[in-house]
């Protein structure tokens, strides 16, 4: 096992002939995946996460910057010399071979004995529940089954320094996904694997990763633990991308009344500590437009809260989701979602009180998206 360091890595794709513009798929990416760490590259499609993974694997050329695996700079190494294992989103199975032979392929190339191969495949195929399909060829399998085979072929390797996974469970049904999230995490810990995992699904990232790298439009937005991302999002993108339902964003202006600063949203005022106001005054924000972010789960409906803020609003809709309910209220055309446990007793059209604790509010510069924090 080894750590992976990605340092100021860029990926350009030259446009078609005549098109002057080059496409920047990855811009100045820097992060480290420590030894035996589970790192997730998370972002919407087209954010550059797969390009980053493929550069680590050596399947794409690095346009600029360096990638180290262990102490070795691997920019100029062929994929086979990087000692990696990888599972592909497109499965990349070998069509003429049975599933057993597919998984055995990298082991046969290493001259493993037949007994050792059989034992190892048994172990991995039981984990991924593919024991019953080992004698089939890939074309006979469903997408979910092929995906598990691709994962098996990556996990079967014992000599890999790093295991790369590109959306390895995206095509599975919800139940199997939930089980594999737990199993993959367990296997990663027990076998001490260093994993770099690409996904667009925040749930996968938050539940499995030790560290998450959030990307958007080729740029890294934030690197942190799942808790960091959830509780201390670095910008509006991360705040909006992480969490389901997404964070509420209220457009505000910063105002001053005598010695007190406050953010004005509609007719409501949220007090701002003077030291925060100080930081805000130094921000590049000529239009004085700020965004106040509060997570739906951090709000309550129907009562006020000490050391917090309360808003009066009409209930717009109530969704019962079984374990919890989502109440949507409307303030001057701005909809706010509140997640409450159990069944909500609110009725559509009622006037109600929405409250949240002061410390639950995140302030963002609406122009740059950057979070304002002490």
């Amino acid at each position, binding site marked *: 096992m080894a750590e992976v360091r990605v340092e100021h890595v860029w990926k350009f794709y030259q446009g078609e002939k005549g098109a002057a513009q080059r496409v920047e798929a990855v811009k100045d990416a820097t992060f480290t995946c420590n030894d035996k760490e589970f790192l997730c590259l998370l972002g919407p499609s087209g954010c550059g996460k797969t390009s980053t993974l493929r550069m680590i*694997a*050596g*399947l794409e050329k690095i346009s600029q910057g360096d990638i180290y695996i262990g102490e070795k700079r691997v920019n100029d190494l*062929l*994929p*086979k*010399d*990087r*000692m*990696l*294992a*990888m599972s*592909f989103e*497109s*499965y*990349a*199975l*070998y*069509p*003429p*071979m049975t599933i057993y032979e597919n998984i055995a*392929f*990298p082991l*046969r*190339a*290493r001259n493993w004995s037949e007994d050792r191969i059989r034992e190892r495949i048994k172990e991995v195929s039981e984990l991924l529940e593919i024991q019953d399909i080992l004698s*089939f*060829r*890939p*074309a*006979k399998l469903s997408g979910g089954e092929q995906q598990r085979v*691709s994962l098996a*072929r990556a996990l079967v*390797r014992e000599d890999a320094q790093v295991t*790369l996974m590109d959306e390895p469970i995206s095509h599975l049904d919800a139940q199997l996904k939930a089980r594999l999230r737990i199993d993959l995490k367990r296997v990663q810990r027990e076998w001490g694997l260093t994993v770099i995992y690409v996904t667009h699904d925040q749930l996968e990232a938050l539940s499995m990763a030790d560290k998450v790298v959030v990307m958007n439009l080729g740029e890294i937005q934030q690197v942190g633990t799942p808790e960091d991302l959830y509780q201390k999002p670095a910008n509006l993108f991360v705040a909006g991308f992480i969490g389901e339902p997404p964070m509420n964003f209220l457009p505000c202006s910063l105002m001053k009344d005598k010695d007190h600063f406050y953010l004005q949203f509609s007719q409501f005022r949220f007090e701002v500590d003077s030291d925060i106001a100080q930081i805000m005054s130094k921000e590049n924000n000529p239009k004085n437009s700020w965004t106040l972010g509060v997570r739906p789960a951090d709000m309550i409906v129907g009562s006020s809260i000490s050391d917090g803020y309360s808003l009066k609003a009409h209930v717009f809709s109530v969704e019962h989701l079984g374990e919890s309910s989502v109440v949507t209220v409307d303030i001057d055309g701005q909809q706010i979602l509140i997640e409450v446990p159990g069944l909500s007793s609110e009725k559509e059209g009622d006037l109600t009180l929405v409250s949240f604790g002061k410390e639950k509010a995140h302030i963002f510069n609406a122009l740059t998206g950057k979070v304002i924090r002490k």
Partner: protein
Amino acid sequence: MPAFILTAGILIPFGYSVVMSFTDFNLTSGTSNFIGFGNYIKLAKDPEFWNALKVTILFTIGAVAIEVGIGFVSAYLLNLGMRGQKIWRTLFLLPVMLPPAVAAIMWKLMMAPIQGVFNYLLQLVGLPGSQWLGGSSSALFSVILIDAYVFMPFAGMIFLAGVQNLPKEPYEAAAVDGVSSWFTFRRLTIPLLKPVILIVLLFRIMDCLKQFDIVYAATKGGPASATMTISVQAYYHSFRWTNMGYAFAHLVVLWAIVYVLSYFLVGQWRKAVSEVHGY
């Protein structure tokens, strides 16, 4: 109806040939009597026929081996993405555009023992010249070379299409897994290309077994009977010696060989296709 005409158009001449092979139909005398298996019994005892069969088989093995071997390697080279790839591909295809008989005459000139360019080149590097088409031991090899020249690009182009159609992802997986290219080639590429290889074999084997034009243009089956294929032999029996019934018997035997071989190859091809698609 068109299918009927088409089928009839194929079957009637074929049936006629088979019927004729059981007669002593002679162009000179114009007589045609049913003689049962007479022609076939004569064939079995005719050393000329056994020689023609041997020559045909050797010709087929030699020509197909060179065409498939070099064709495969050229397809790989053409797929590497070298500079000027389009020009290479066009040049590569040139021989296929020649009528085989013309190519044969062209090669005949180059292979001429005294004024030919081949012996001149051999001489330049200090090697003894060859009789080429004129030598009883070198003639068969020489016509094989001509056939290979004409049809190797055909094989190469079909292989190239096959190589270009190979899926990319499995190769990426193999590359990351550190599997050597030789191992990948043997265990992945060959099985994936097996249907294409079998198609080329099918076409080329059938074509070579029936070989007539190149041999006739280059050597007329000679010297002695060194390059006498079954087709050329049948031609002599029919139009030289006007013994049509006997010539037809040659062709029916040739047809039977081609049929059995292609039946076998098509079966193998079906199997390979289903393996590649994984059914």
